[in-house]
């Protein structure tokens, strides 16, 4: 079962021991199932926090659900609610959410080649790109390259569907639990998210360039945020990513196995 954690054989997966599914449908069901468990619980817990934020802003539960349904990517949703409370204008909300979610561009660009298969209509890529958010993306980057091309998009779509559905449920849950949870429980729920992402990336790290990018990014992120809360994250990505990329090119290529693993 993949309920409690990612099994070691999966994280050690190489092209030689590809996970074989009988059909795209089987791959989609496996994706649905694999997200069930820790990924779903952690992301769900984060959306409990979002639901209570919506409640706190004096908005109704439908607005929270609308936001999770249409604008699924937590940091941007939080910014939109906060700006609503502060009386922000349309232009301000558009700009602030776009800045906050700019990471989705390099994430989508780097995931897409692992999802493409011959004969898939383009609209499906545009539809399921809605699921590009850290949790599903990290799973897609790890699992999809190990699958047959025609099973990749279905797997990712299944994985994202579980997460997205759960987030809708817990947005409502958080809305109705707002004010009922003691402060220390909320604290734990909010802390789950960064800790989970940290462990997911530690568990996934394989390509040398990407490991370096994670390390340099983690080092530069906080100081650059202090320099510029608005641009810090973008600068971190481009600067730390380029340093890691250049270092990977410059270092001797002895451990470049698993390029497509």
């Amino acid at each position, binding site marked *: 079962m993949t309920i409690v*954690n990612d099994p*070691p054989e999966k*994280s050690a997966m190489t092209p030689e021991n590809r996970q074989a599914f009988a059909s795209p449908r089987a791959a989609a069901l496996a994706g649905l199932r694999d997200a069930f*468990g*820790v990924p779903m619980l952690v992301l769900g817990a984060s959306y409990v926090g979002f639901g209570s934020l919506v409640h706190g802003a004096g908005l109704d539960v439908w*607005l929270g659900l*609308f936001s999770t349904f*249409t*604008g*699924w990517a937590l*940091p941007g949703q939080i*910014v*939109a609610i906060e*700006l609503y409370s502060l009386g922000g*204008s*349309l232009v301000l*909300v*558009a700009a602030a*959410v776009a800045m906050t*979610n*700019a990471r*989705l561009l*390099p*994430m*989508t*660009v*780097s995931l*897409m*080649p692992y999802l493409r298969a011959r004969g898939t209509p383009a609209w499906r890529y*545009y539809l399921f*790109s809605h699921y590009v958010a850290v949790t599903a993306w990290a799973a897609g980057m790890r699992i999809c390259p190990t699958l047959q091309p025609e099973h990749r998009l279905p797997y990712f779509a299944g994985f994202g569907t579980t997460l997205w559905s759960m987030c809708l449920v817990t947005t409502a849950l958080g809305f109705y639990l707002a004010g009922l949870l003691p402060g220390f429980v909320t*604290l*734990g729920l*909010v*802390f*789950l*998210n*960064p*800790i989970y*992402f*940290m*462990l997911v*990336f530690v*568990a996934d790290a394989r390509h040398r360039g*990407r490991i*370096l*990018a*994670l*390390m*340099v*990014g983690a080092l530069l*992120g*906080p100081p650059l*945020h202090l320099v510029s809360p608005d641009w810090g*994250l973008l600068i*971190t*990505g481009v600067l730390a*990513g*380029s340093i890691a*990329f250049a270092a990977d090119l410059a270092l001797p290529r002895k451990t470049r196995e698993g390029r497509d693993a």
Partner: protein
Amino acid sequence: MLEQELAGGPWWPYVLMTVGALATYFWRALGVALSGRIDAGSRLFEWVACVAYAMLAGLISRMILLPNGPLAETATADRVAGAAIALAIFFLTRRNVGLGVAAGAGALVLITLGRTLF
């Protein structure tokens, strides 16, 4: 102006959320469109992947070290301790993400509760 008529009305929050959703989806759609022109084996592709991983790592370490919201009221040392405990449990349990996350978040809650008691 349409915006002035809508602002403050019952649909105003929905208008704002729709604009936020479009600003979010814009990046995803642009990513799909651009990715069609990038070869998966190319250096450009690997650079973009490095930028994505660096951005996410920067975001995560910022969330732990310089958090917004309720976490901002906890001590930095406690959050770093929670993250370290999560990593330790993760490796001690043969890379079990669920146990690591539970241990890290549980540790922060207990340490914070402990500080209010003493």
